[in-house]
């Protein structure tokens, strides 16, 4: 087998995988419709406004709400305090994994 054949085979495989990843993405997002619909239902039923991604502090839990604790006192769209917010390291307790 010539080197160029091998190369074309290799490139073809990788491109095939790339296409496969796109198909996989479409497939998985299709499969997730049910779950997303469930989440949406919960958001509507409980009137939720935020993702529970940043639960570390009161002022980051409801980023869009600017409640009593948020740094966004002026407006929910005001951006977080940078860079101080990003430079403080998490407590050792959390880092050591407990």
């Amino acid at each position, binding site marked *: 087998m*010539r*080197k*160029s054949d091998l*190369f*074309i085979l*290799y*490139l073809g495989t*990788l*491109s095939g*995988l*790339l296409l496969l*990843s*796109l198909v*996989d*993405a479409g497939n*998985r*997002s299709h499969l*997730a419709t049910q*779950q*997303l619909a*469930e*989440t*949406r*239902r*919960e*958001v*509507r*039923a*409980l*009137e*939720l*406004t*935020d*993702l*529970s*991604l*940043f*639960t*570390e*502090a*009161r002022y980051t*839990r*409801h*980023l*869009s*709400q*600017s*409640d*009593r*604790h*948020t740094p966004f*006192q002026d407006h*929910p*769209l005001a*951006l*977080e305090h940078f860079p101080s917010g*990003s430079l403080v390291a*998490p407590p050792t*307790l*959390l880092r050591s994994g407990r």
Partner: protein
Amino acid sequence: MKAFIRKQRYLIDFTLSSLLRRPGKNLGLLVVYSLIVFLLASVMLFTHALRSEARLVLADSPEIILQRMVAGRHDLIPGSYLEKMGRIRGVIGKHGRLWGYFYDPAVQANYTLMVPRDRQLAEDEAVIGAAIARTRGVSRGDFLTFRSTDGNAYSFRVSAILASDSELVSADLILVSEQRFRTFFGIPEGYYTDLVLNVRNPKELRKVAEKLTLRLPDTRPILRDEILRTYDAIFNWRQGIVFVLLTGTILAFVIFAWDKASGLSAEERREIGILKAIGWETSDVIRMKFWEGAIISLSAFLLGYLTAYGHVFYANAGLFEPVLKGWSVLYPEFRLTPFIDGLQLATLFFFTVFPYTVATIVPIWRAAITDPDTVMR
């Protein structure tokens, strides 16, 4: 056409042999290159998926939330404001919402306590989010005891755990009855955290908000649109920060790649000289170098992107977890739904493959048009 393809194949053969003659150097380049693409693609896929999911899921949050401001800070809002605002056309429903935070010293975590409107709970009953159940190690029927602001301890029987499918929005929720919520936090009857207004026609939202600020000047409306924009901005911002942090790495790589691709080593110069001496045309030399650049950059793009895809959507973005998790004790376990932005993918392709390939060709052009005699001497 056939002859053209045959020629290209011979060129690829030759290029591959020439690349393999310096395996360490070229392989190293490929690995570093792929790693850079991997990092960029991971950030891109991750933030885009999260942003798409947030947009999709939060599209059903309340249309308008009304907060009361006292001395520039958020404050409890009296239920009488519901009457005080009067009938506003376009508002088809309005009610108070009760929610707040509770810090649990046992696990050093913040919970979001909330009074649900879609279910009736008994006074000692609580429905908890999946992350709390995991962190506290409780299941249905167990009891959770918290000390309230008045010093009393209140026990809650866990009657249900929220579906883990929706953990992305409900990981740290504790749903309790209104009565218990008020006694627990000492919130007097008739006061709410904020008010929710349902507006059917999204076109009327701005007008309703305008009327609200006129009729209740001490309040501030938050529109659903703003919630969605907040998340868009947050993820753009995070993506931006990561890219800024990566800039140093990328620049270092660019210098390295540029040097490798454009600054011809004496050996390469000699190689070109010999090729020309044995009768290669300038255009063939350039084509050969084009293939060299294309092979490396295409490989790096494909390898980097594919590993990034696997990392983000099959390994749950394990590398980013410490960054995202940050200080949080309660972290939702969720599987990202892959949403891929074709435009972003194309941009990544363009910015990885194109510059490198060009960088390899340009200097060759200069070397290739020189006389073989001067090069070989």
